[in-house]
């Protein structure tokens, strides 16, 4: 292999990797600290709302990933 490690081979692949890393960062410190307030949104604690934002963002990123992976016939 050209690189000693497996890395994305297309711009879309790099974008997907960045989205995955972004999702993990969104649910951990220090980002989680921004939402660590005793505030309510839609009647729910902000931390709960943010947790579900992350959950649905994971679904959205994987849906986009399916289009990328299956779109170029690269299973």
């Amino acid at each position: 292999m050209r690189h000693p490690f497996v890395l994305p081979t297309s711009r879309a692949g790099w974008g997907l990797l960045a989205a995955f890393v972004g999702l993990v960062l969104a649910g951990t410190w220090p980002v989680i600290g921004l939402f660590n307030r005793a505030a309510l949104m839609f009647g729910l604690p902000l931390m709960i709302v943010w947790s579900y934002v992350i959950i649905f963002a994971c679904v959205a990123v994987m849906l986009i990933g399916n289009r990328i992976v299956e779109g170029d016939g690269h299973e």
Partner: protein
Amino acid sequence: MNSVWPLVITLGYVAMTMAIGLKARAGHRMDTLEQWGVAGRSMGPVTLYLLIAAGSVSAYTFMGAPGWAYSKGVAVFYVAVYLAYLALVAWYFGPKVWKFGEQFGHVTQASAIADRYQSPALGGLSALVMAVGSVAYAVLQTVGSAYILFVMSGGMIPVWLGVIIVLGCIAVYLFVSGQRAIGRTNAFQGALMLVVAWAVGLWALHSATGGLDVAALFERLQAENPEFLTLPGARGDMSFSFWTTSIIVSMFSFMPPVWTQWMCASSARTIRRSATWLPTYYIVILPMVVVGFIGIYSLPELARADTVVLEYAMANLPVVLVGLLGAGTLAASMSSSEPFIHSVALSITKDVLQPLFKLSDAFTAKLARWCLLPVMALLVAPLAIAEPGSLVMILLVGLGFASQVLPAFIGMFFWPRASKLGVMAGILAGFAVTVTFTTVWSHPLGVHAGFWGLLLNLPVFVAVSLLTPPTQASVVERFFRIAAPRGFRRSGRALD
């Protein structure tokens, strides 16, 4: 609680699960590990979705998570976040693991490790040590099952008898139908849990607030006990560092039953489709957690936080819902314990006994089914009945080890140069640190013990790999044609 209905409903659930598990065989012969171990790699996206979802939503969701909400607050949502991340892990790795299994004939995680590093010893070692965590996990779930039967029967079914009933049922349908039983029963249990969680959560909310608006509950918490709405939680023990490192360690713990479940899919695309929608299932945690928050004011003097939903239901909900709660909680614990029991029997037979005694494939397949019985009768049942105080510690150490196997997977998916000795050295170094920081000095600086283990494990793994011979090129090429097909094509040209 004087009504007999909760027990009738709960036992009715057990009977239905038994019937579904037995019927799951559907005429297939169970004399090969392809069938008994991975259901002939035949599961469609809906079954796989419910199989993985129900397997990961354990009794913790119905008992532990509301208990955490009751005692700590929103800190419990680290579970929802890491479960969503596990779906990302399944999305990326699942299709590759499936292809390994399909092309190289793997039926267990340890088989894949032994094959990649050409080392049956490394495969056997990982099978054995993963078994420690798996057995401890199955025992905890079995204890939860027996406790539910004890409560639903008003004490008529003692814990020892509950353990025998639950394990007896699981043993029969696992022996007869293997992984197909796990697929069908988990699908049923997954659907049941979803319905029960929402029914109980909404009914409890209505009984506590007079409506279905959750805002009133959280506005009171915000005004009177705001510490429940933020980290480090009401008990002050869920720091940012523990939240973060717990999520990272849990995310990289590739538990063997999950690996086997990926290999049960009918195609690589099936896994990707199931994983994509998997996080939506984890909304099931929300209604149960709301009951935990309700308990803060309704049941302020509870001795055991993890009984908050059961106690609240028995005091405030109709008996039919109490029965459904019993069935749902039992479903959660059974759906999590049976894949672990199956996985231990499968992996010990395939990855330890077969290479050790040079057994034939046909005999190994037969032995794996019978191996269920000693695993249940000699390990899970006695430990569940005895409920040793160190069980949670065994589980933590076992799960800590699971994360320390990470180098084996880095060498399988990302780094061709990884060597057998590098993986072994990394695992042993990481495991020693994890054990020390679990038992002797618990989670120093509020950082998860498994994370400390990885901090030593990974550099040792890289250094020893670079100093020792790599696995033979043909084997590495075989794996990386799947793990990185485009990258490997470039390599092929370069070699030519």
